C-alpha cells in the first residue's frame, strides 16, 4: 500500500511541502510522463519494430532520442532540486542514517555507468561505525550526484570515496582523477545551470543542476563542502556531516 512520509511540527515547512507535492504531480504528469512516452515511441521506431529505417532516418531518430534524453534529465533534475530545497519533512535531528551503507549503495548504483565509461570506483575506505543526522533519501540524492559527477568527468580514470570521523563530524572525501575544475569556474560551481567549459566538452547534454542539488541539501542540514581541484589533474570534494550518536 502507500507509506506516507512523516510530517514535521513546522506549518510553514509543511505548507511548502504541500506546494512541492502539487508541483511534482504537475511536473510528473504534464512533463515527465509525455517525454517518457515519447522516448518509448522513439525506441520502437529506432528498433525497427515499425519497419526498417533508411540510414538518414536512423540518424534523425537517434538525434530525436538524444534530445528527449536531455529533456528527461532536465525534468528529473528539476524534480530533485525542488525536493532538495524543501525536503521530505523528516526531522533531521531525529533521523539517523548509517553512512557506510549509504555510500556503498551510491557506489553500487553508479557501477554500470562507471564500467561503461572505463572508470574504476573504489568505496572501501569507509569507517563502518559512522551515522549522521540526515534523511536517507536526502543523503542518497546528495551522494548520487557527487559520485555521479566524479564518474562523469573522469573518463577512463579512478574515483575513490572514503569516510572517517573527525571530531564530532563525519568526513566524506570523494577524489577523482578527472578533468578538474578551471580556476575561473570555481566560484560558480554550485550555481544552478552553471557548467564549466571543460565539463561541457565532455558532456554537452549535462543539465548543470547536480551540484546545485548537492548544495541545497547541504545547506538544509548544515553540511559543509570543500572543493580542491586543478584543471586536468582531478578534483577532491570533502563533505563534513554532523555525526549522530550510535
Amino acid at each position, binding site marked *: 500500500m502507500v507509506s506516507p512520509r512523516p510530517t514535521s511540527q513546522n506549518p510553514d515547512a509543511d505548507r511548502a511541502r504541500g506546494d512541492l507535492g502539487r508541483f511534482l504531480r504537475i511536473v510528473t504528469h504534464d512533463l*515527465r510522463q509525455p517525454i*517518457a512516452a515519447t522516448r518509448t515511441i522513439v*525506441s*520502437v521506431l529506432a528498433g525497427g519494430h515499425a519497419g526498417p529505417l533508411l540510414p538518414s532516418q536512423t540518424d534523425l531518430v537517434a538525434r530525436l532520442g538524444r534530445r528527449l534524453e536531455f529533456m528527461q534529465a532536465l525534468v528529473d533534475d528539476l524534480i530533485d532540486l525542488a525536493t532538495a530545497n524543501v525536503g521530505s519533512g523528516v526531522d533531521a535531528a531525529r533521523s539517523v542514517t548509517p553512512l557506510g551503507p549509504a555510500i556503498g549503495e551510491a557506489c553500487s548504483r553508479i557501477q554500470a555507468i562507471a564500467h561503461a565509461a572505463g572508470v574504476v570506483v573504489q568505496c572501501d575506505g569507509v569507517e563502518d561505525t559512522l551515522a549522521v543526522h540526515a534523511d536517507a533519501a536526502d543523503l542518497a540524492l546528495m551522494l548520487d550526484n557527487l559520485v555521479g559527477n566524479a564518474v562523469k568527468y573522469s573518463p577512463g580514470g579512478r574515483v575513490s570515496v572514503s569516510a572517517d570521523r573527525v571530531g564530532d563530524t563525519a568526513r566524506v572525501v570523494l577524489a577523482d582523477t578527472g578533468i578538474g575544475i578551471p580556476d575561473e569556474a570555481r566560484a560558480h560551481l554550485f550555481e544552478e545551470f552553471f557548467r564549466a567549459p571543460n565539463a561541457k566538452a565532455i558532456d554537452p547534454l549535462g543539465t548543470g543542476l547536480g551540484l546545485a542539488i548537492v548544495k541545497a541539501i547541504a545547506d538544509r542540514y548544515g553540511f559543509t563542502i570543500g572543493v580542491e581541484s586543478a584543471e586536468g589533474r582531478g578534483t577532491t570534494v570533502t563533505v563534513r556531516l554532523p555525526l549522530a550518536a550510535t
Partner: protein
Amino acid sequence: MATILMIDDDADLAAALRVLLEGKGHQFHTAANGELGLRRVKEIGPDLIILDVMMDRYTEGFRVAQRLRDNSDDSEYAAYREVPILVLTAVHRTTSFRFGPNEDSLPVDELLEKPVSADRLMATVERLLGRAVVRP
C-alpha cells in the same frame, strides 16, 4: 500468442505498444482509464495487464490493481486474480509508493519506470507471459 490489455490514458504510448506487441503476434487491447480497464478485463480475459498509475486520478492504477488482486471470496475479479500485472509508470521517482508482491506493497508482479525501451518491455512481457496460463 497472448491477449494483452493495456490500461493507460496515453493513446500515443498505447499506439507504440500496439505496433510492438502486435508485431510479435499478440492480441492487443486498450482501455483509457481504470473503470474501462476493469470492464475490459471481464470482456476479454487478458493473459497480461499493462497498467499505468496516474490516469484520471493520481493513484487510479493502484485502485485497479487492488480490485484485481482482492482476495475476498466474493470478489467479482476472482477469476483474474492470477493474471500478471506489469505496472508502467512515471511516478515512481516522485512518490514514496512501494511496488511489488509483498504484503505492504502494491500487489503487482513487475514495475517498469517510463521511459522503457522496446527491448526491455518485450523481455519483461515475455517473462511474465511465461509465468501466465495463456488461453489457447
